[in-house]
């Protein structure tokens, strides 16, 4: 005898698929914002499920800071091929070359906030009216107030105090010329839900999430990977450590944790026991208490 209720993972999956199908119905030119991280990989997987046996009806948009983990780009290209999808790349380097943005200076410089301009320029250039993201409400306090369908004005800005109320599962995707929407199908998922789902669905993810030997240095309470973009002080030592990454951002700001979790079983068990938030290792969020909100208002992911 069947039980006529869903477990929470199935319910979250059903909700996300519903949201993705609403996007197709309500927008002309939607894209999936693809970072190469686990959340956007899960969104892509959900999109494939939602429209099977059809193809994913969205292009993929990657904002390339140039400061990537090489593994991320390899993974991205493989995934695009697998889904037979179209890839749009917005390059931060181009924005810099065109003088649209200026690189930060100094040891803690990152290209993180530069992405905003590149993203908005790309959205405008391709007349994108809906950008689907893998942001989750549990990630960060300003994201806790985010809608499934999140309106952006014609400057790409988010006005958190003046959001449209969102009731039941009725999503208002109406916009005027020049405006667009950000859509977050996995709003209600937590980090552990994501890992449980990846595990259950056997979703392929970049090797960076699994524990591996890597050259790193200890900075801002986290293991920063050695890369060509990193300015290393004399006082800092490069060490070989077994690490894995909980989130993937730019290689310059994404810190790893020491871990032995080299398979999904171990990762799920490790995440369930975690005592620090996943963005705790992201230098971009540590700049101030409202660092994320400030970037989001301007048009960040």
């Amino acid at each position, binding site marked *: 005898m*069947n*039980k*006529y*209720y*869903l*477990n*929470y*993972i*199935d*319910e*979250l*999956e*059903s*909700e996300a*698929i*519903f949201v993705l*199908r*609403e996007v197709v*119905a309500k927008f002309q030119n939607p894209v999936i914002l693809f970072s190469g991280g686990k959340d956007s990989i899960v969104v892509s997987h959900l999109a*494939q*499920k*939602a*429209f*099977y*046996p*059809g*193809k994913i009806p969205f292009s993929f948009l990657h904002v390339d800071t140039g400061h990537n983990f090489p593994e991320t780009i390899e993974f991205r290209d493989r995934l695009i091929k697998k889904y037979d999808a179209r890839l749009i790349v917005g390059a931060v380097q181009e924005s810099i070359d065109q003088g649209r943005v200026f690189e930060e200076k100094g040891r803690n410089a990152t290209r993180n906030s530069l992405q905003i301009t590149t993203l908005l320029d790309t959205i405008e250039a391709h007349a994108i009216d809906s950008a689907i993201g893998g942001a989750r*409400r*549990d990630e960060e*306090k*300003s994201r*806790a*107030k985010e809608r499934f369908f999140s309106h952006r004005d014609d400057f790409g800005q988010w006005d*958190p*105090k003046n*959001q*449209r*109320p*969102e*009731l*039941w*599962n*009725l999503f*208002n995707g*109406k*916009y*005027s010329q020049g405006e667009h929407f950000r859509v977050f199908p996995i*709003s*209600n998922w*937590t980090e552990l*839900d994501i890992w449980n789902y990846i595990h259950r669905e056997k979703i392929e993810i970049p090797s960076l999430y699994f524990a591996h030997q890597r050259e790193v240095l200890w900075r801002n309470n986290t293991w920063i990977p050695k890369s060509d973009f990193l300015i290393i002080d004399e006082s800092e030592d490069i060490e070989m450590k077994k690490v894995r990454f909980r989130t993937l951002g730019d290689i310059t700001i994404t810190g790893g944790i020491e871990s032995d979790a080299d398979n999904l079983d171990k990762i799920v068990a490790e995440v369930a026991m*975690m*005592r*620090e*938030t996943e963005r*705790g290792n992201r230098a971009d969020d540590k700049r101030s*208490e*409202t660092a994320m*909100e*400030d970037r989001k208002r301007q048009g960040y992911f």
Partner: protein
Amino acid sequence: MKKNTNQLLRFTTAGSVDDGKSTLIGRLLYDSKSIFEDQLQAIQKTSERKGMESLDLALFTDGLRDEREQGITIDVAYRYFATPKRKFIIADTPGHIQYTRNMVTGASTANVAIILVDARNGIVEQTKRHTFIASLLQISHIIVCVNKMDLVDWSEDKFTKILSDYETISSKMLIKDIQYIPISALKGDNVVNRSENMPWFLGAPLLHTLENMHISSDTNKVDARFPVQTVIRPQSEKHSEYRGYAGKIAGGIFRTGDDVVVLPSGFSSRIESIHLHKENLDEAFVPQSVSITLEDDIDVSRGDMIVKVNNRPTCTQDLDMIICWLNNNPAKPRAKYTIMHTTNEQKAIIKEVLYKIDINKIERDTEDKTINMNDICRVKLRTTQPLMVDSYNENRITGSVILVDDATNETVAAGMIV
């Protein structure tokens, strides 16, 4: 691997400004070990900076910059935690600004409303208002938490008095299930852990109650409803004949072989297959997202509804509903709005305002016909095309609508079909 049967429970919290709502949520998160070390450290620092002696649990629910600066909550925030039994989503709604609007939003998807009452003050106007909104939005379960019991010497008499006062207001409303729990969010009594200070209370603490209450019947499993979201027609050789109707089941159970009818056209057919991705299902039920194929090649598109032949919704252009106005601009008499209902979108005009509900007195006002922000009114609407509706009491999904102002694109009203 053991099959995961943990359910998802969504709840909303309602309370006046100083009823300790944020503290309660902070306590639930803290005692259920859902707070991370770095969050805890940030809160500790802020608590110290503000000169507080102990950890201010309420700070866990702080969000936007303006809120942190002004010490208020502006918008609905969503919080998450899980126990070995269930996953929980909290719609944390602010206590004062735009109260009705935010509580209606938070309540629209909730299984449970937690209504906080300050043990010192007992039932106040706000309590009535919150209970009314919870009943209006047909939240299946209400838990009345009588908070700050530490400040009334853990008095059983106080608790019993509040319980009895509450019955006088709730007995007039349509509420299916009410439970009462005496708590102290500040001290932690009866939130996650059983209170040693109130041995007279024989019920379960709040978290235990939330973990065990029966929620499988909160959705309508009787009347099968399938609003079509989109049609999947792969342009590939392999699937050239495929025509699948994608949607999320809004009510009841569908099985392969069921005789169905497509509304509003009225064409009938039979369910050939139900599937999600590569998995074929013999049956599917609310709230599953699936794709359905029919035996006959008939015209079906977004906004249509597939139902069983012998169990149909009402197909009508005239709607009688209770609306809650959510926008600063008042309703314009006889103006046209976009109405969104399931996957259907039409134009509608408000033909008549029958009455307004004074939510402080829970009384009808038939004189004042204006509709302003936070007003709750019974109205008659006419739509340009028929909608396939059920009453909101029967089905929260097929019984609800929103109105959108075409001039501003803003969502201006939430409606529940009578």
